């Protein structure tokens, strides 16, 4: 079934897989009816899906460089779209996004616009041209276009800084989910997560990651959409929530006006467990200045176009035009989840705060709320908290606190859905975090093995040796990431946003100008990468240590400063040094034409 023309059989293979997964959900719900415990169901969901990914990873094993680095360049557009969507949507998108919208409203929605709008830049400025180039990695493009080991090495540095910041958050997320679902301590669960991640990528490299990511996308999108539709129907809010929640949105605004946003004293807030927040921002009203919104969206868009683990997915398509279309499919599959997150946030918030709904807790007596089963469960998990600050015995809006993850994780239970849905959500979160972690670890390991080891240190190395080095690096980087993740330094969402800022600081302009400005040369690119990364990182350190910042650029948008420095230094240095050689200019001309041979050979 898998052998021979596997590519032609893709729709059938994944059709059977999807059917099998749905059947598994039904079997689990029957098991739940028959009295199987919630814990067993949770373990089954995570273990079953991870086992499937491991099998796919094993079947995709390869000993060829182009299969290992770019999946043999034969991934069809739609499937590459799904794989990119899974690669892209991390544990943060899956578990934390709806929560962010729930708490911060409009100011947070800038991330939705930014994380989708960036794909327009990917499609129009970069992906088709880098595909024509025929590179294996993003530094491969920088190193060949600009020439010289230093430019290649700088690109590897930027890539590693950005991707490593990102990957620790993802390993952290797999650890969190594994520790809840399998009921083991977090510091061990992190390594369980890591082993699952490596099972997908070790043997097959990009090929293994591609086919597991498609499988992971199917799991995560079912796990996200099914509860949203179910909850909406159960609440009577509408059978297709995306088009039918206008009344619910305006009802929330009405309730907000009725309750008001009471500010808690610092002393009261000390009682609240770390990481939990109350509702303090309007749900659908504009609650941020235009610049706060636009700067965050812009930083995320430029970051999207500079993140190597996304870009390298478009190296796997069969042609340049397929790369372009594939970006469209990627965004379509991302859109399915992103447009559902605000709906989930709306349903979750309304079901909790509307006193006229049976699930509403605001306005009930504190003791009554504390007696609710799901409140006790999630309070124990440190994701919910109530306290009677004003001593009137009734729960007010400002006396109710929740963790961001609870919106996705707890809403099904609050709405009274069977436990099987919670198991499904755990499997979905695991799929989301694993797929992103795989893409990131592979991006780093490939850049170091291909660009540093093969291109700089030992250009004569044989394929077998190169692939051994690549795999060893994969494990080393994975373990380094897991070790840092186990320390739990930075929250999941914070480090994800930093990764975008690092990537755009160092790589956005060197990549874009490499295609669109012939005059850009090696010296300019090196200056752009080095000064961009240093100034961006410097700004972050400055603001984190109490610096006031300027132009409203915060620690979440420091990439705007970094990339501005990168642009200016790259243009200035390019212009004061000599123009690139005729051969390089001819190469740029060739990149701009979709037909013909790629710049770099099939095996290089």
């Amino acid at each position, binding site marked *: 079934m898998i052998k021979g023309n596997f590519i032609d059989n893709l729709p059938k293979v994944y059709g059977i897989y999807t059917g099998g997964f749905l059947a598994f959900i039904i079997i689990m719900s029957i098991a739940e009816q028959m009295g199987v415990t919630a814990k067993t169901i949770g373990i089954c969901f995570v273990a079953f899906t991870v086992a499937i990914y491991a099998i796919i990873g094993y079947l995709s094993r390869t000993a060829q460089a182009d299969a290992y680095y770019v999946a043999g360049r034969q991934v069809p557009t739609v499937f590459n779209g799904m794989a990119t969507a899974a690669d892209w949507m991390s544990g943060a998108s899956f578990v934390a996004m709806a929560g962010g919208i729930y708490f911060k409203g409009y100011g947070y929605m800038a991330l939705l616009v930014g994380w989708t709008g960036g794909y*327009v830049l990917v*499609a129009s400025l970069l992906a088709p041209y880098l595909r024509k180039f025929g590179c294996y990695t993003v530094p491969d493009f920088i190193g060949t276009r600009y020439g010289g080991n230093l430019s290649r090495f700088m690109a590897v540095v930027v890539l590693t800084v950005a991707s490593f910041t990102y990957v620790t958050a993802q390993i952290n997320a797999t650890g969190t989910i594994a520790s809840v679902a399998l009921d083991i301590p977090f510091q061990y669960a992190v390594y369980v997560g890591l082993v699952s991640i490596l099972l997908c990528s070790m043997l097959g490299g990009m090929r293994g990651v591609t086919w597991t990511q498609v499988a992971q996308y199917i799991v995560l999108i079912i796990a996200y959409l099914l509860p949203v539709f179910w909850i909406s129907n159960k609440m009577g809010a509408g059978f297709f929530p995306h*088009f039918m929640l206008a*009344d619910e*949105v305006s009802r929330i605004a009405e309730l907000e006006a009725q309750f008001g946003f009471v500010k808690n004293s610092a002393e009261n807030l000390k009682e609240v467990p770390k990481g939990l927040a109350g509702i303090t921002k309007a749900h659908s009203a*504009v609650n941020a200045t235009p610049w706060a919104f636009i700067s965050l969206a812009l930083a995320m868009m430029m970051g999207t176009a500079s993140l190597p683990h996304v870009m390298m997915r478009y190296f796997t398509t069969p042609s340049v035009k397929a790369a372009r279309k594939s*970006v*469209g499919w990627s*965004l379509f599959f991302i859109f399915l989840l992103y447009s559902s997150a605000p709906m989930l946030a709306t349903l979750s918030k309304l079901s909790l705060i509307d006193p006229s709904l049976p699930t509403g807790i605001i306005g009930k007596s504190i003791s009554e709320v504390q007696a609710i089963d799901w409140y006790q469960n999630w309070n124990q998990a440190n994701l919910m908290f109530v306290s009677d600050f004003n001593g009137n015995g009734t729960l007010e809006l400002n006396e109710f606190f929740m963790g961001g993850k609870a919106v996705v994780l707890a809403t099904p239970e609050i709405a009274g859905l069977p436990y099987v849905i919670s198991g499904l959500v755990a499997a979905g979160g695991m799929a989301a975090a694993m797929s992103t972690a795989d893409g990131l670890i592979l991006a780093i390991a490939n850049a170091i093995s291909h660009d540093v080891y093969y291109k700089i240190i030992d250009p004569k190395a044989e394929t077998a040796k190169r692939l051994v080095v690549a795999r060893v690096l994969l494990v080393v980087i994975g373990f380094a990431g897991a070790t840092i993740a186990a320390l739990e330094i930075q929250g999941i969402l914070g480090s994800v946003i930093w990764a975008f800022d690092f990537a755009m600081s160092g790589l956005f302009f060197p990549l874009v100008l490499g295609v669109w400005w012939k005059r850009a040369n090696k010296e300019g690119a090196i200056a752009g990468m080095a000064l961009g990364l240093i100034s961006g990182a410097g700004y972050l350190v400055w603001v984190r240590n109490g610096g006031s910042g300027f132009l409203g650029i915060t620690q979440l948008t420091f990439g705007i400063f970094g990339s501005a420095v990168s642009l200016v230094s790259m243009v200035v240095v390019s212009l004061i040094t000599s123009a690139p050689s005729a051969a390089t200019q001819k190469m740029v001309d060739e990149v701009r*034409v979709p037909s013909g041979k790629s710049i770099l050979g099939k095996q290089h």
Partner: protein
Amino acid sequence: MSKQEQHWEKSKGLLMMTLAIWFVFSIGIFLFGAEMNEVTGPFGYPLTYWFTCQGSLGIFVILIFWFANRQEKIDEEFGFSEKGED
């Protein structure tokens, strides 16, 4: 002008148009977020709210497919299109 230069001029024109539409829906409209939110948008949501959860996102999806088709037409016109399947 050589064939290749003409092809690049047309591609640049398409890029500019694509980026202009992108700019309007990712940045431009949010300069007037507060004012726009007073208006009722599609499906009865406040307009700015609708753009942030569905409108802009959906427009980006359509924009990329539109761009890909237009670029393919340009490539075909100059005979630079690749043979073979998608």
